[in-house]
């Protein structure tokens, strides 16, 4: 799988304003609504589902990264967005540290394999210190898209 198969370019947020988990999730979900990829009517239900998933265990998996996600019938295919925070987001991460890079994934209820493929891709790329560092340092959407594109072209391996 490639980032350009599910990351919505118009929803990328290089300057997340929120510093709390729920606010950050709301800001990211709203960017997908604004990009026309999520129905506005489903926004609250979607945010609640993502937060409910977080209550089962934080998706802040350390190294300043979080991958909040949920399954929701409002999408027909996997959609995702990425946000970078300069300030850091309190996310109850495994390592207790703030989060600076967040990938939000919304999957249709019956596509666990594509969800896993997306997680695999994100995990594989974020293991690369250079990719991770450059992403945290990115300050505009164009730079983030460029990094994702370079990752899609195996330039960080």
């Amino acid at each position, binding site marked *: 799988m490639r980032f350009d198969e599910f990351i919505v370019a118009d929803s990328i947020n290089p300057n997340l304003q929120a510093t709390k988990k729920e606010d950050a999730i709301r800001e990211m979900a709203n960017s997908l609504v604004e990009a026309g990829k999520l129905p506005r009517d489903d926004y609250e239900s979607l945010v609640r589902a993502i937060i409910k998933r977080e209550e089962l*265990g934080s998706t802040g998996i350390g190294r300043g990264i979080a991958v909040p*996600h949920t399954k929701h019938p409002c999408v027909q295919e996997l959609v995702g967005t990425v946000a970078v925070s300069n300030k850091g987001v309190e996310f109850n991460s495994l390592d207790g540290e703030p989060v600076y890079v967040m990938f939000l994934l919304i999957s249709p209820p019956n596509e*666990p394999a594509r969800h896993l493929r997306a997680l695999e891709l*994100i*995990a594989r790329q974020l293991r690369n210190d250079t990719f991770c560092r450059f992403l945290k340092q990115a300050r505009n959407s164009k730079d983030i898209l460029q990094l994702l594109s370079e990752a899609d072209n195996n330039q960080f391996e």
Partner: protein
Amino acid sequence: MYRLVTVSNPEGLHMRVALLISECAKKYNATVTITKGSETVSACDVLQVLTLGAVSGVKLRVDAQGEQASEALNDVCALFENNVQSSV
């Protein structure tokens, strides 16, 4: 020592299972690895476990070495055998 396991969860090796595996593996004085095909990763690192992208039905090999290898192997493998209820 090692054991072969099959991912039985219909959602595959999703993030919560990966986290449980890494937390479990870290508890023991043992080196635990998981192999899928030609790829071997540390069971202690959630990012590495996620890179396996193991869907339901995939067969994996879990290896453990060290003082508490037997206990670690039992506990880690139990996580594959007991379905962790998911909302992915």
